[in-house]
Every structure is written in structure tokens, then in C-alpha cells.
């Protein structure tokens, strides 16, 4: 009773609103997974029913790819290869540059630093058409390596800013000791600094993984061959016309679920790191 009296009306309203909003936020995502285990007639006639016992037919069809033209693994592997390639290349190039800008007082370093800051303001849209023809000339259109190069470039400005800020606060004494002990500058970086900088490597990976996995604008323009396409293109390729006309609703839900699942697993495993990393990225 005593506790109840402390709960003012405002507090109750706040809790009710929060619970309601939590339901609004969460229900569509649960709905997506639930629906992916149902069959089309069930989806149309009883949208709220639980998909139990689960039907895996939609997953089997998506696995073979009878709506989108390619089996699921083709889209998944393309997405995964682009993601892994981009993150590795980004980590290497952005830490090297960030470290040099934090430590080196070489002639031209202020200009380089200024240039990277300016590149942070460039909207990707402006690059679409020139890159389309440029990649075409290089034979890198419909090519995973081409996408890796483009995505790495788009991720570089923010990643360098984050890396530089981190290395500025990294104690110089540790590297100086390594240099005195006969390490080369690169050796000090590679063998001493990098192993101690897992947190910044994680942050750079975190701020880039979500958008690279989800990217559609460039992928849609540069990857027209279906065997080179990524998961977001597969999701977008279902025509969301009138529901009754389309016979592949459950498959659409299945590929949506499969595209989302890796990121949700990633989120639940690293959730506090992810929220911290994204905050750092936003406030750079």
C-alpha cells in the first residue's frame, strides 16, 4: 500500500505510455517472423494467428529462390562477402590514416586532416552516376570488389575521424618505449598499438556493419546481374502490389526475416557495445 501511494498518476501514465510504445515498436517485428512461418491463405484470412505449427515451405522456396531467380545462398554470400571485405578494408585504411593524423606532424598533415573532414560532408547521391560509368569502364560493375571499394570510401570519412580521436587519447609513452626498444614506426603501430586498440576497431566495425548490410541505393544501381545481387535487392524485388494478386507473400516474409536475422543476432550479442558505438559515431 505504501508503495502504491508513492506511484503518482503521472508515473502510471508514463509507464502505460512506455509499455504501449514498446508494443508498437516490437509487434511488427514479431509479426514479420511469425508470418514467415505461415502459408499465403492463412496470412490473408487470419493475419493475427500464430504460425504454429510452423510451416517451413516459404523458407524452402526462398532457399531455392523460385521468386527472385537466385537461391538464397547466392544473395547471402554476396552480402556477406561485401560486408566482410568492406569492414576489413575499412579497418586497415582508417586506422592507418587516423593514427598518422593523430601522431605524425608531417608537412601537409593539416591539409589531409581538413580534406577528410570535408569528405564527411559529401552526400553519397552525388557520386551515383559518375561511379556507375567509372565502375563500368573498370569492369567493376556487377562486381563485388567494386561494391567493396565504393562502400569503403563511403565509410572512410567517419571511420578516420573516430580512429584519429581515439589515437589522440592513446598514451604516447607506450609507443615511445617500443621505438626505443628498436621497433620501427610501423612495428610499434602493428605490434603494440593495434592489439591494445580493440575497442576502436570494434567501434569502427559497429558503425559500419548495419548500413553496409542494408545498403540499397548503390547496390540497386550497380548490381543488375541477379547472381551478383545482395539481400536488400532481393527483398526489394518482390512487387508489393495488391496482396491477393501476389502469390508469394509468405516467401517475401521469409526473405525479410532472413535478411534481418543476422543483424538482430549481432545486436543481441553486442547490444551495449552497439549503442555506445553508434552514440560515439553520432557525436564524433
Amino acid at each position, binding site marked *: 500500500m505504501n508503495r502504491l501511494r508513492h506511484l503518482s498518476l503521472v508515473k502510471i501514465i508514463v509507464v502505460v505510455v*512506455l509499455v504501449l510504445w514498446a508494443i508498437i515498436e516490437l509487434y511488427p517485428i514479431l509479426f514479420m517472423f511469425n508470418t514467415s512461418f505461415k502459408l499465403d491463405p492463412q496470412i490473408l484470412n487470419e493475419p493475427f494467428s500464430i504460425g504454429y505449427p510452423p510451416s517451413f515451405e516459404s523458407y524452402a522456396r526462398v532457399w531455392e529462390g523460385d521468386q527472385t531467380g537466385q537461391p538464397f545462398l547466392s544473395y547471402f554470400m554476396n552480402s556477406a562477402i561485401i560486408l566482410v571485405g568492406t569492414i576489413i578494408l575499412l579497418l586497415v585504411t582508417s586506422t592507418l590514416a587516423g593514427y598518422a*593524423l593523430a601522431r605524425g606532424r608531417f608537412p601537409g598533415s593539416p591539409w589531409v586532416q581538413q580534406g577528410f573532414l570535408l569528405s564527411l560532408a559529401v552526400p553519397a547521391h552525388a*557520386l551515383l552516376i559518375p561511379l556507375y560509368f567509372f565502375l563500368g569502364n573498370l569492369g567493376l560493375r556487377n562486381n563485388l570488389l567494386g561494391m567493396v571499394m565504393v562502400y569503403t*570510401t563511403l565509410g572512410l570519412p567517419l571511420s578516420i575521424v573516430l580512429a584519429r580521436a581515439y589515437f589522440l587519447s592513446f598514451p604516447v609513452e607506450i609507443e615511445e618505449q617500443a621505438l626505443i626498444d628498436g621497433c620501427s614506426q610501423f612495428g610499434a603501430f602493428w605490434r603494440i598499438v593495434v592489439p591494445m586498440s580493440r575497442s576502436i576497431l570494434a567501434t569502427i566495425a559497429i558503425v559500419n556493419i548495419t548500413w553496409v548490410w542494408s545498403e540499397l541505393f548503390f547496390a540497386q544501381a550497380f548490381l543488375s546481374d541477379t547472381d551478383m545481387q545482395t539481400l536488400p535487392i532481393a527483398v526489394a524485388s518482390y512487387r*508489393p502490389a495488391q496482396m491477393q494478386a501476389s502469390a508469394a507473400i509468405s516467401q517475401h516474409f521469409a526473405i525479410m526475416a532472413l535478411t*534481418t536475422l543476422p543483424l538482430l543476432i549481432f545486436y543481441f550479442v553486442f547490444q551495449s557495445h552497439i549503442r555506445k558505438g553508434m552514440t560515439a559515431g553520432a557525436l564524433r
Partner: protein
Amino acid sequence: MTTTEVASQPIAPYSNRLSWYQRLKKTLRDNLIWYLFVTPAILLIIVFMVVPIIEALSLATYRWNGVRPREFIGFENFQDLGTDRFFLGALQHTIFFSIAATLGTVTLGLLLAVAISRRVLGASIYRVLFYLPVMVPITVVGALWVRILEPNFGMLNTFLRGAGLEALAESWLGDAKIALFVLIGVTIWQYSGFPMIVLLAAAENISEEVQEAATLDGVSEWQRITHITIPLIRPVLISISVLQVIFSLKVFDLMWVMTRGGPGQSTDVLGTFLFDEAFFKRKYGYASAVAVAMFVIIFTITYIYQRIVRVENAKL
């Protein structure tokens, strides 16, 4: 470093007599390692960003369908943009979308952050849950909501009919008057968690002492929010708002998946307009002019924002 080198070289005049070429070579050799460190990043930025921007500026002055030779037309593309009602419509929708989506996500994010920072019941769960939709790819969010909002069999209208609210059931994405608002609603649904976690981190950075002093002074919860929390997180509030605006100006995926700019161009934005002009109408010169316009708008906002943020940081 340099002073000791000069001191150890008593024959100073010689170093003055080094030609500019020799001096450049020496500088390069001394700092070679740093130049090697920044080279990969600089190369990528130049090849895949700087050169394309210059190319876009140049393309915007041509008429070109991608196959036949380019025809130089000066500023004609830009003049055409000024009278193209579809471009002006897309520009208007983009600006409206950006402002409304930013107001929605940031206001909601702020309210959620303030509530959670005051340790309401289940605060740690909300923190995890409200960020969840941010992790879902926009393409999936769009495709999912198209299915939910489908007028005949969609989950929302089925729910409304079942709840006796038949009158509220709409053709959500088929009505030119409301489609853009629906897209803004979906954006708020997905992204309010983002300003929330950023503002929450800022609110939790407010020192215990300030909070305790406020408690001792006996301020009400409302005063605490309006007089302590919000003023103290104001810089972060401004930052996240500007970031949301910049992010929303680049919107593409949501319209691409949900409406393709329709019905009747009512949800066309700069991103989809650019894409259509380039890859469907093959007007690469004209589309480049759109890209240049976007570049100017977004680059200016971002650049001013960066300057202000740096000035503010310098003051702290």
C-alpha cells in the same frame, strides 16, 4: 627534433643552399612512413569520391543518354530544373519529409530518453527494445510496412475493422493526400530509438552531484526535466537533430520499396527522382544536375554544422 638536427649541423649555409627539389626529397624521406600510412585512404577518397564529384559537375552541363556523344548545353539542365514541377515537387517532399521526420524522431526520442533516465519501471528493457527497429534494414522495414498497410488484407486495416473502427481504415499508401505522412510515420517508428540512445547517454552523463543538489532543493520532476536535463543536453540535442535532417535528406530506400514515388508523384523525393531520371529515363546529364543540387544543399548544411560543432567544442 628539427632544432637538434640544425644544432648538429654546424655548416648551416649548406642546408640553405639545398635546392627546393632536394629539400622536398628530404622532407618526403623523413616523413615517408606517415605518407605511406595515409596513402591508401587518400587514394580511395580521391578515386571514388573527389574525381566522381568533379565528373558529376561536368556531366551536369551536358545532355547525354549514356550512348551517343555528349552534347554540351551549359547551364540549361539547371534552368530546366527550376521549371520542372516534378523536380520541385520532389524537393518540396524531401524538405517536408526531413523536417517532419526529424521533429518526430527527436521529440519522441527525447521524451523516451528523459523517461528512461529517471529510472522508470523496466528502464533497462526499454533501452534495448526501442533501439531494436534501428537495426532492421530500411528495405525490410519498408517491405514489412507495405504488407501491414495493404488496404484489403493488411494487418492494420484488418485490426481496425475488427475493432469497429472501420471508418479509420484507409488506403494508406494509395492515397496521394496521406502517403507521405504514412512514410514519415514509418520513419518515426523505425528511428526514434536512435536519438533516444544518444540523448540517454547525454542525460546519464549529467553528474550525480547536480542531480542530488536538485533533489535536496526539492525541485519537482517537471522542473528537473525543463531546468536541468534539457538545458544540459542541449548541444547533443542540436547535434542529433542536424544529423537526422542530413540523414533524411538522403532518403531513398523507403520510398523505393514502399511507393516508388507514387501515388501520382506524391512521395517522390530527390533520391528517387535522381534514380529515375538516370537509370530509367537515361537522362544522365539532367540527373547529374539533380545530384549537384543535392550535393550543394547537403554539403552546405553539413559543413556549417561541423563548423558550429567545432567552435562549440573549442569553447568547452
